[in-house]
């Protein structure tokens, strides 16, 4: 029971909230094209010199490369493991199924910063060095709940009985998976890869504790940098990070639709 006038007001309000939601990113992108040597609003002049500069700073390049590697490996591993788990949870009934399901969803409930600290203290107590592998493992664990969820949605949405049909036609379980299941859950797998990639590429909380000067991911590098000073250089670096995330975002929207990932509709 909402009148047309109320509806228009609500629409205008929603648009305003949407604008505020993207405002900080908008500001970063605008500022990154400034010609001045310090951050000021509105930016003075237009130049791409800060992008040029950021690509020449070795510490940022190294961090960006490291972040890319970590995100690629973590998203592939998380998606592979998540697919196996989703298959087990959706296609089989066995004792302890509910318990395992909650266990794999637990990282959603635990703040990243606490998990990062726990992993740090755990590795240290066993005398294990913090390296890229540690960061990857941390990211795999926080991405796994999403991977399981995406693949589960895809599995549940599959046409009924096609796997049984393939089996009856003589396909072994592995062939059934490769020829029938995998092609049909591909959207969920792609969404999982992309989402895990973003999650890993953007993560600060977990990486913060695991990073060493030699293994500093890009977001951690930015955090450390702006802790001391901020200048247009870091806005250019940040803008690049945003663009990477938004390319991935576009991929998700095209494969699944964002609303569905969050259970709306």
């Amino acid at each position, binding site marked *: 029971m909402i009148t047309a006038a109320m509806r228009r007001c609500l629409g205008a309000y929603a648009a305003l909230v949407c604008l505020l939601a993207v405002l900080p990113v908008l500001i970063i992108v605008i500022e990154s094209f400034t010609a001045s040597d310090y951050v000021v609003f509105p930016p003075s002049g237009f130049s791409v010199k800060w992008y040029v500069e950021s690509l020449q700073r070795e510490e940022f390049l190294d961090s960006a490369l490291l972040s890319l590697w970590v995100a690629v490996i973590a998203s592939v591993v998380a998606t592979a493991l998540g697919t196996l788990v989703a298959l087990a949870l959706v296609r089989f009934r066995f004792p302890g199924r509910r318990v395992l399901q909650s266990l794999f969803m637990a990282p959603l409930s635990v703040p990243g910063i606490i*998990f990062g600290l726990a992993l740090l203290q755990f590795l240290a107590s066993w005398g294990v060095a913090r390296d890229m592998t540690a960061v990857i493992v941390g990211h795999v664990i926080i991405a796994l709940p999403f991977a399981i969820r995406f693949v589960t949605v895809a599995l549940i949405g599959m046409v009924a009985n096609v796997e049984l049909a393939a089996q009856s036609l003589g396909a072994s379980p592995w062939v059934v998976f490769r020829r029938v299941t995998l092609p049909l859950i591909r959207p969920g797998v792609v969404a999982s890869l992309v989402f895990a990639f973003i999650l890993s590429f953007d993560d600060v909380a977990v990486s913060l504790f695991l990073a060493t000067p030699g293994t500093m991911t890009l977001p951690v590098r930015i955090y450390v940098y702006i802790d001391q000073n901020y200048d247009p250089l870091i806005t250019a670096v940040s803008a690049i990070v945003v663009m990477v995330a938004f390319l991935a975002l576009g991929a998700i929207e095209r494969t699944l639709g964002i609303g569905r990932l969050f259970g709306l509709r």
Partner: protein
Amino acid sequence: MRRFLTSRHATPWLLLLPASVLFAVFFVAPFITLGINSFYDYGRMTGIIHVFTWKNYEKLWLDEYYLSVIGATFRLSSITALVTLVIGYPVALYLTVASPRAKSWVIALILSPLLVSVIVRTFGWAIILGKNGLIERVFTAIGIPGTDFLHTEAAVVVGLVNVLTPFVVLSVATSLQSIDPAVPLAAASLGASPLRVLSRVILPLSLPGILAGMLIVFGLASATFVTPAVLGGAKFKVLSTLMYQQAVILQNWPFAAAIAVTLTLIVLIGQGLQNMAAERSRYGASLR
């Protein structure tokens, strides 16, 4: 054993094996370590001392300064939950009447901060709220100079609300969607004005979504690190920033572990309440 492994009953367990091992070693074990460490002593010269003590918890829960940090954490999370509700509720309401196209746009835009690196987003707010930023320019233009909001609690709330609003919107929207569309119409047919329909029918029926959304926001806000660290500045302390300071700068791992355990408890209690609310609203729905 061999027969078991080749039989069909083994399949789910084989599928679950890699992830389970990973979780046992790198998720469950680290939290056990954290729990144990929180009961160890610490000396500035000696590092971790492996003797059992309640000292860390006594310090955190009884000392006036640390109590004030716990208080600040609760305060920040509560204010954030309230503000996200006030800002997000009308948006959720709009989603129920919007065209499908408008709806998917609003959802995409509202959710977009979640997919942008927290550090970038927070940095953006620092530029907006800080010296010579957008806000100061606007206020100066209307004759109120010197409004640098950076490094205040308000700045932290703004940063948190920005990223946490989608949780309230989605939670409330789900709740609103489940209302039988005939119910508000029935109220209107009985003579209720649109505003009264909203306050007497729609609002009470969306209460479960409101509650769930606020509890989610409370839990997430209480444990964020980057936003209070960057927007709150060095003097603004909540449990997460205190924990980072103790762990990384002061290297007092047992105390940091005690803070982590306390923070986990706060988050888990929030989640428990949220599950209870969800359970009760489902019960209510089944009664209807």
